[in-house]
């Protein structure tokens, strides 16, 4: 009796060991699966980032590039400027203006695409499955064309001799063309157009999963259309709103092509400022420092946004 109990005990131990072994191997295999992605992230994302960080603390080369001496000048230039005559230090107003414009335009773009994209996504999600495919296809068509070409197309519409002004003039709504090109409005129009699909798609994805019986239940319990929207639909599609906003806000903040073409040289955004430093400006450390600053702004904004968005509602909902 005692002997068999001991034997059983030993069996159990070796069984547990075998289980432990299998579990370890399982975890190993999973890491193996993730390896290719990890390698790419390490080399393609973290690597360049590290280089940027290092460059931002080096001395600028005369004709671009860097000199391998430590220097805080790059970071100094991001926020402050020294007067060339009396050496007084003041805020780098031009940079602050560009930071502010970038954040402002990106925020407005995000809100505009949200306001436009929400009803669009709702419309698509409430069609029959056959039509949903068709509409989704239509939404993604802009992706098939090069960003430059799309931006030039917008230019054709909004320039002084463009389609918009011609139509408005013909209708007699305006007496002389409105100047839209090279203004913040032009950049906004361009960015909203370019990033709208990035808002519609995640919104659609979460609306498609929305149980429309909940909407009916809302109506049944005396909620009007607006109340159903506010208290049922929006809280339930919040993951889509968050995802869409991030997908629009982040690239907007770093946008380069759209402000370059539609804003001309006059209305710069952060992307243009950074490009300038690596190009004509020949100030790589400043460019690197600006890039890191952009990254920090994005991360802080995201952290703030996600924290706030998930605080209100979306307790148990996927």
């Amino acid at each position, binding site marked *: 009796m005692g002997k068999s109990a001991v034997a059983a005990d030993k069996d159990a131990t070796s069984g547990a060991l075998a289980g432990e072994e299998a579990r370890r191997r399982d975890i190993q295999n999973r890491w193996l699966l993730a390896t290719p992605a990890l390698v790419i992230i390490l080399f393609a994302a973290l690597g360049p980032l590290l280089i940027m960080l290092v460059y931002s603390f080096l001395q600028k080369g005369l004709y671009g590039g860097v000199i391998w001496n430590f220097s805080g000048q790059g970071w100094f230039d991001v926020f402050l400027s020294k007067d060339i005559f009396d050496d007084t230090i003041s805020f780098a107003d031009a940079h602050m203006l560009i930071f502010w414009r970038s954040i402002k335009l990106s925020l407005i773009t995000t809100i505009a695409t949200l306001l436009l994209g929400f009803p669009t996504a709702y419309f698509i999600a409430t069609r029959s499955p056959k039509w949903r495919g068709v509409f989704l296809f239509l939404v993604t068509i802009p992706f098939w064309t090069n960003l430059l070409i799309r931006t030039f197309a917008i230019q054709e519409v909004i320039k002084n001799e463009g389609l918009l002004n011609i139509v408005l003039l013909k209708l007699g709504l305006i007496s002389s063309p409105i100047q839209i090109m090279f203004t913040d409005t032009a950049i906004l129009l361009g960015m909203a157009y370019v990033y709208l699909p990035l808002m519609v798609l995640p919104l659609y994805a979460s609306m498609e999963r929305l149980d429309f019986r909940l909407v*009916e239940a809302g*109506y049944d319990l005396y*909620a009007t259309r607006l*109340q159903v929207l506010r208290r049922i639909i929006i809280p339930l599609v919040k993951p889509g709103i968050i995802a869409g906003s991030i997908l629009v806000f982040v690239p907007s903040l770093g946008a380069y092509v759209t402000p370059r073409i539609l804003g001309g040289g006059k209305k710069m955004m952060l992307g243009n400022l950074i490009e300038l430093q690596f190009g004509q400006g020949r100030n790589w450390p400043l460019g690197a420092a600006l890039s890191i600053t952009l990254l920090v702004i994005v991360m802080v904004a995201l952290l703030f946004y996600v924290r706030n968005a998930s605080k209100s509602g979306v307790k148990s909902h996927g």
Partner: protein
Amino acid sequence: MRSVADAVAAVSAHQVTKVFGSGSDRVVALDDVSVDIRANEFFTLLGPSGCGKTTLLRLIAGFDHPTSGRIDLEGQDISYLPPYKRPVNTVFQSYALFPHMTVAENIGFGLKMLGKPQSEIDAEVSKMLKLVKMEAMRDRATSAISGGQQQRVALARALAPKPKVLLLDEPLSALDLKLRKEMQIELKRLQSETGITFIFVTHDQEEALTMSDRIAVMSAGKILQVGSPRQIYDHPSHRFVADFIGETNFLEAELTSVSKRVGKLKLGSGTTIDASLPGDGVAKGPVTAVVRPEHANLVKGKAAAASLTGKLGNIVYFGTDTHYHVALDDGGEFIVRMQNARDDAGRWSVGDAVGVSIDKDAVQVLRD
């Protein structure tokens, strides 16, 4: 007071037709349906899948509008009123609880939308939680309670705004048998305690019989018969109704003569049986005679009292009663159900020549 409420139907449908789709996708979900549902009654829509029960409920709730016809609530035409303007609430088949709200928030939602002050909402929610015995779950997420509890929350949520009419679309179908029986009793209790008109949808005939004041039996978009459970069971108006509710024997026969509300039915085998008729105006000709298994009796051998004769085929024992399957001499099968008595054992055995005696009041004559 009661008579005033009775005078005007709580809900009435007037020649309501509902068509979905068009062309080859055209479905007539409701076909010229007219029915009056009285105030304070437990009214059940009973019928097989796809017969239009949910459609009728959705028209009353306001999620859909009739293609033609009219729906009245207490005499007022509500056919085109949006759902949030109707004093009608629904318990959905899937419960449709709001996943981003707690149990209490779900129950209070209707009152909140009606603009009630928070103190009143809190008091009412507590009352409802007590009514459905869920006090302890007040602040739980709806995903963290069992199916039966979700069902109670759905019920409390629909009852909290004190609707005039409560619509219940197969609310018990997702529950296991035991819980289902409990909830049936619970629902009956809630209905009598609140005095609200319940319109209950089910395709379970036993559930319909035990719970309802009145039942409407539906088939293919039409209401075939409306009546008390007893009327529906004992006097089905259509072969479909007789077949759908309970077990039934059908006998093809010919009505040969009628006098003093008694008809002579000539069966296929040549024998003639008597049947009570609602009046003398019933036309002669081919009919179907319907006899419930428990309304017939087995007799030994070829007794004179026997209306039908045959051999005992199968004997199925059910505890309180036994089903005797009789292979009739003319080829058909007839089932007799008899209560078991203490000295019954061995009285009947398979292969016995038996007769079936049928009282004239046990025969229901149908013509379809």
